[in-house]
């Protein structure tokens, strides 16, 4: 049994190692800033000048109030937001609604120059480099990327197996 836990933990970590490079999660990052009155400013940072498409899926009940792009470069459809990146290094949009703790924002991107796709990473507040000094204490956690989730799962499995093994050895 304990061997089974160990194997499961190791297997989970191996899966993380294999899957994560294909996800290319590091390309595009999302930050979420509270903007008061249940509104949030979402900032998407693009590390290079490129042409890309982003699809953001918001939790139900959220409303999109504002997008920093020209009208031809985005389309909002209920809780799905389509964004066309044409050289921009940062795109922001403002949403209103119960983002926390009801759900997360999930995003995918396609870089049409590099021919790559991936998931938008981030969502946990990392706003210190932005102006406005937002209140980070109530920062919503949205759009957790696949990497920490899978890595955490693997570590939990491994930790559980190890502690169970120790417990049995001591008894």
């Amino acid at each position, binding site marked *: 049994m304990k061997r089974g836990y160990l194997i499961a933990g190791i297997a989970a970590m191996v899966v993380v190692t294999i899957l994560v490079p294909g996800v290319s999660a590091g390309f595009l990052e999302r930050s979420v800033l509270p903007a008061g009155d249940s509104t949030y400013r979402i900032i998407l940072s693009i590390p290079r000048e490129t*042409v890309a*498409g982003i699809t953001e899926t918001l939790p139900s009940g959220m409303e999109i109030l504002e997008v920093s792009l*020209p009208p031809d470069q985005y389309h909002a459809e209920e809780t799905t937001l389509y964004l066309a990146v044409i050289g921009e290094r940062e795109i922001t949009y403002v949403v209103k609604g119960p983002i926390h703790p009801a759900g997360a924002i999930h995003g995918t991107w396609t870089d*049409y120059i590099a*021919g790559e*796709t991936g998931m938008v990473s981030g969502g946990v507040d990392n706003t210190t480099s932005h102006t406005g000094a937002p209140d980070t204490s109530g920062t919503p956690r949205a759009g957790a990327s696949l990497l920490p989730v899978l890595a955490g799962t693997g570590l939990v499995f491994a930790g559980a197996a190890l502690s169970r093994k120790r417990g049995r050895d001591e008894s």
Partner: protein
Amino acid sequence: MTRHVAVLLAAFLILCPVVLADAALPGDSNGDGVIAREELGRSLVSTLRSGATLSDPSVRELQDASWVYLYWNGTSRTVTDSSGKMITLTRPLHRIIVMNSETLETMRSLGIGKERIVAVDKYIAQKPEFFPEFAGYPSVGSIWATDYEKILSHRPDALFLYATVCKAECDEIERRVTASMPDVPVFRIDCYHPETYLDDVARLAAIFGKEEEGACLVSFYRDALSRVDTVSSSSAPPEVYLENWNDYKTVARGSGYHDKITMAGGSNIFRDNPAEYPEIDPESIIARKPDVVIKLVGSVNYIFGGYLGKDSTRFKEVRDAISGRPGWSTLPAVRNGRVYVLHNAILGGPQYLIGVTYMARWFHPERAGDLDPVSLHRAYLEQFQRLDPELANPDLFVFPER
């Protein structure tokens, strides 16, 4: 009247740039010849909403439009090749065939990857020491024995050939390829002549949207050649005899090698010969008393060293043999130990700046303190060719080093 019309038509055909048959700009929905930001934005949003993925053929069109917008400001790109022919491109090239190793080397310097190249000349495929990524790559034969069926089978979207070297053969390849595939542009680019090399770099950079990389490469060459110029212009030029891999075959004005001797601050003793690559009478060398002799190796009976990395001892053997030629003991070059062996890999093609730097050091040893051809060679391989800088071992390219 009819004659006037014919003349006008002929003038139009000559002056009108060659435009690819697939001339419509991708993503130019209103057909005004410009991909506007709004047009691209709408196409992107529409594609996202449709859920189409990168593997969808319609997305390839969007990718091309995106590329043209980003690298060509949303318009077609007209490039004049080394032969003076104007070619207008409306989309990026994805499936090129390169039959000129100097152009391929320059493409690598610009970061143009193998993924855009579907086939190469057979000699490129046989140089794994310098083009490891093309070892065993699909080949279309050579300039002299071209496999036209293979060219067609690769469905290229462009072909790259020499402009001035092997001109008759390359003209024939261009004629036959154009007859079979009129939509496929044939670029004639040399990428070996020092006088036009930096222009060729700019042409390739424009074609592939690599202007930044091109500027970086041009700057590297200008810096290196400026250091050479400082040394070479500082004192009287020595009289130089340069012999290629064929014994007693030299160079004259009009050849790239003559220009390289001059750049390095030497005076070519056969500069005024009417032929660019004359075979000369051995007695005439003795009569002209060269101060410096340079023997080029790397071809015909002198295949050793260079990137092959073999037989470094042969450099000394060749030097000793040349110095021992009948009657040569009286030459200033031999008496003063100024006979040098130089591998053509660092003089004949895009790497000429390395060979020229070695030559400038040999021609002006008293003023060449700042010249460091080994470091230059290493930097070129590492920064631009993405190759192991250890390949720049001077024992395999020159003898003696100083």
